[in-house]
């Protein structure tokens, strides 16, 4: 059995990963994995690491949570993320902010353009209503239970499953507040994040809560992370707006002491 290769599994050791983004040295790879549709994964990344998520087959939806790895309570705050940047839609150049005014990660590449910071992920109850089942042991696992498992393994707990973002499936808000889902498959799209602080990354690859298809539809998610540097002191992304400039200044202060 040992040595068996399947489509969805981690690359161990990660330095044996192939088909890497241009310029990435195999010896710098920290994490390489294909997460099955309906699966989850988690990992800890150092400050500066790049994390690339690829929707290889077009129906991945990465429900993503970020916690600061070296702090007990600092984590992604989606409301502050959209409010501080005055922008409800995530894309290249967006920062993922913590609840205490610092940058957890920056979106440095995005070929999808369709993401969601508002709708969170699914629950067992929601999946039972849509698919007839939703618990982790069933064929239709829900996002919340998966994220709770990831955080529990990481030494956290279910109550730390805060609102997440979704990558590769989008939601727009109409003037009357109505939420419009955008989910046509776009195979090959990727998003790359740069960790600006040490991160505990948790993700569930499960159908978006607004995905109305009656069949549980989730395809593989490629996860690749490699060593790198945080935003350089002269990176123009640091001065995009006064809010961004202050967020980086606060992050630099925290990381330098």
């Amino acid at each position: 059995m040992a040595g068996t290769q399947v489509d969805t599994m981690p690359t161990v050791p990660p330095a044996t990963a192939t088909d890497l983004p241009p310029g990435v040295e195999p010896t710098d790879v920290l994490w390489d994995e294909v997460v099955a549709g309906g699966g989850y994964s988690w990992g800890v990344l150092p400050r500066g690491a790049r994390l690339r998520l690829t929707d290889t087959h077009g129906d991945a939806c990465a429900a993503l949570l970020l916690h600061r790895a070296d702090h007990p309570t600092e984590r992604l705050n989606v409301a502050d993320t959209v409010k501080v940047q005055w922008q409800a839609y995530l894309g290249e150049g967006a920062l993922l902010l913590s609840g205490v005014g610092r940058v957890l990660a920056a979106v440095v590449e995005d070929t999808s353009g369709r993401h969601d910071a508002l709708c969170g992920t699914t629950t067992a109850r929601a999946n039972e209503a849509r698919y007839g089942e939703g618990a982790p042991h069933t064929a239709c696992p829900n996002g919340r239970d998966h994220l709770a498992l990831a955080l529990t393994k990481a030494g956290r707990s279910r109550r730390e499953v805060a609102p997440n973002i979704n990558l590769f499936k989008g939601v727009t808000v109409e003037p009357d507040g109505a939420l419009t889902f955008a989910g046509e498959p776009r195979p090959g799209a990727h998003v790359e994040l740069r960790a600006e602080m040490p991160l505990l990354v948790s993700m569930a690859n499960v159908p978006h809560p607004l995905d109305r298809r009656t069949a549980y539809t989730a395809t593989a998610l490629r996860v690749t992370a490699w060593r790198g540097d945080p935003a350089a002191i002269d990176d123009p992304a640091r001065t995009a707006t006064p809010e961004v400039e202050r967020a980086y200044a606060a992050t630099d202060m925290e990381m330098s002491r």
Partner: protein
Amino acid sequence: MTATPFSGEVLHDEVVDARAPWSHVVRSGQSLRIVDLGGNQAVDCVLFVADDPTERYSAPDTIAAQGNAFLTVGSVLLSTEGRPMMTVTGSTVERHDTIGGACSKESNALRYGFHTMAQHACVENFLHEMARHGLDARDLQSNINWFMNVPVDPDGTLGIVDGISAPGLWVEVRAAVDVLVVVSNCPQVNNPCNGFDPTPVRMVVTG
């Protein structure tokens, strides 16, 4: 409009000072009416299942289930496990916000400058009041902003703009389970959410 009669016996009636926190357990079947006494006063609010506060209000689950980002009459406020906690049974304000989060010293610093770091903020109220119930920063997740107006433009631009509330307007919610309601009567003075003048609100529990 405050003349609108209460549905049942008044069990608790209290005025929350401007800028102050408040908490109360609203039992299953009871209603809570929040009255905006001075007008344009945002009331930030989090909900916990009283028997198991690891289950709490979830803005994402609520808006995804109703397919709309705004809270209005008929909105069912869902928990993190997708369970109904409360229903908005009446409102003399057209809609309320649940995507704008709570103001904090730290987010104010990013939005308005580090000189605002000393100002009081909703997160301070929440953490102070939640600690009385054994809850900490991990438990502060998504919240409701009663009376607050946060439209999203077609290009995604999101702002906290002039309120649509006025003196005497109110919102009423009815509990489906026993709910610990924790409120911050928002002290924000850097944007129009409180008309730049935080004022008291009245909380009336009936049942």
